[in-house]
């Protein structure tokens, strides 16, 4: 295993585990909805056998609901696959806008559990950098987790990617609680600093603006 993985050690496994647990829970929910709608179809059949007419519109609506859940499951499994493959290479050219949309989709359920909504403003043109995909997902999650804690329930965390001279930056905004340092733990901590160092990145906390800026180089230097 590449020494880069050792930077995060057990935390990397924990991150993988947390995301996988959330994904599996969401798949279970999809299965439960499909199960109940299939059950409803069975109910209609049983009722029809006993002489109650079936409304074709109800059947159409049920089919639509099942199809919607199948599409949802397909998106979840595709994200799961992308996430699993993010450990394949230690350096890869990635589109930051895509990564951010992907991370927002992956974290959506965990954010909802905290009562926080996520919003991504994608860049108008692709912003590509060469980086370590798994480590960048990790640092984005860590920034996001902290942002959600600072924003608090019933709030929206907005994420945006911008092109910079020597790379790009990801901005986490709407973090009103940032200005009150006593209400949240310090950030970044040891692990975030290790990730930042490994990626050649930097984290700047703009307390007054309620923003966290993650600066990323165009390429990781060796």
């Amino acid at each position, binding site marked *: 295993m590449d020494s880069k993985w050792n930077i995060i050690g057990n935390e990397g496994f924990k991150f993988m585990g947390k995301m996988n647990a959330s994904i*599996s*829970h969401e798949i279970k929910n999809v299965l*439960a909805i499909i199960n109940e709608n299939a059950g409803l179809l069975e109910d209609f059949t049983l009722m029809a056998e006993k002489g109650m007419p079936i409304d074709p519109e109800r059947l159409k609506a049920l089919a639509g609901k099942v199809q919607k859940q199948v599409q949802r499951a397909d998106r979840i499994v595709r994200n799961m696959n992308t996430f699993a493959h993010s450990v394949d290479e230690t350096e890869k050219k990635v589109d930051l806008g895509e990564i951010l949309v992907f991370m927002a989709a992956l974290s959506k359920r965990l954010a909802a559990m905290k009562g926080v909504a996520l919003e991504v403003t994608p860049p108008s043109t692709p912003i590509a950098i060469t980086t370590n995909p798994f480590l960048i997902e990790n640092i984005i999650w860590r920034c996001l987790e902290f942002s959600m804690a600072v924003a608090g329930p019933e709030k929206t965390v907005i994420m945006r990617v911008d092109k910079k001279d020597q790379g790009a930056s990801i901005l986490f905004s709407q973090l009103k609680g940032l200005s009150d340092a006593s209400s949240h733990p310090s950030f970044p901590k040891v692990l975030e600093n290790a990730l930042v160092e490994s990626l050649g990145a930097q984290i700047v906390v703009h307390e007054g603006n309620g923003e966290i800026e993650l600066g990323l180089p165009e390429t990781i230097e060796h």
Partner: protein
Amino acid sequence: MSCMRATVRLSLVCPKLSSIEGRVFLFGRKVLLVDDERDFLEALSERMRNRGLNPATAALAKEAIQMAQRETYDVLVLDLNMPEMAGFETLKILKENNPGIHVVILTGHATVENGIRAMLSGAEEVLEKPSNVEILIKKIEKLVRKKMVKVQLFVTAHVVSLST
């Protein structure tokens, strides 16, 4: 509800698991379903109505707590993974406000650890999603019967104390 519809619906109640007496027993029983998946709530509540039960739904824990304060339910069916407020916290508040409420946990991952924690928090039954509606209704029936026995024991004790 027309007579025919009521008869057909009654015949759907636990056809394999419940007796006719059980089907009649459950008719009109109030169940509060709490889950953040609205499509799930919609389908499950319709299946329960098809079986003669009287379900109400809440997609948020706060909503469920308010509903349980306004109305008395025979049984509460609760998901553990809820937005904003964890299922265990919701369960604790609901049990504090309504000590007599009977609870079935319906969750995506019914681990032994979660099961024990749920029981210690006052839940009496745990089921994993996706579940069989007949098994869920059987559990609801069991809890409603338990509640009735408690009421009967209370009334009997009261009558005995009055007559002595």
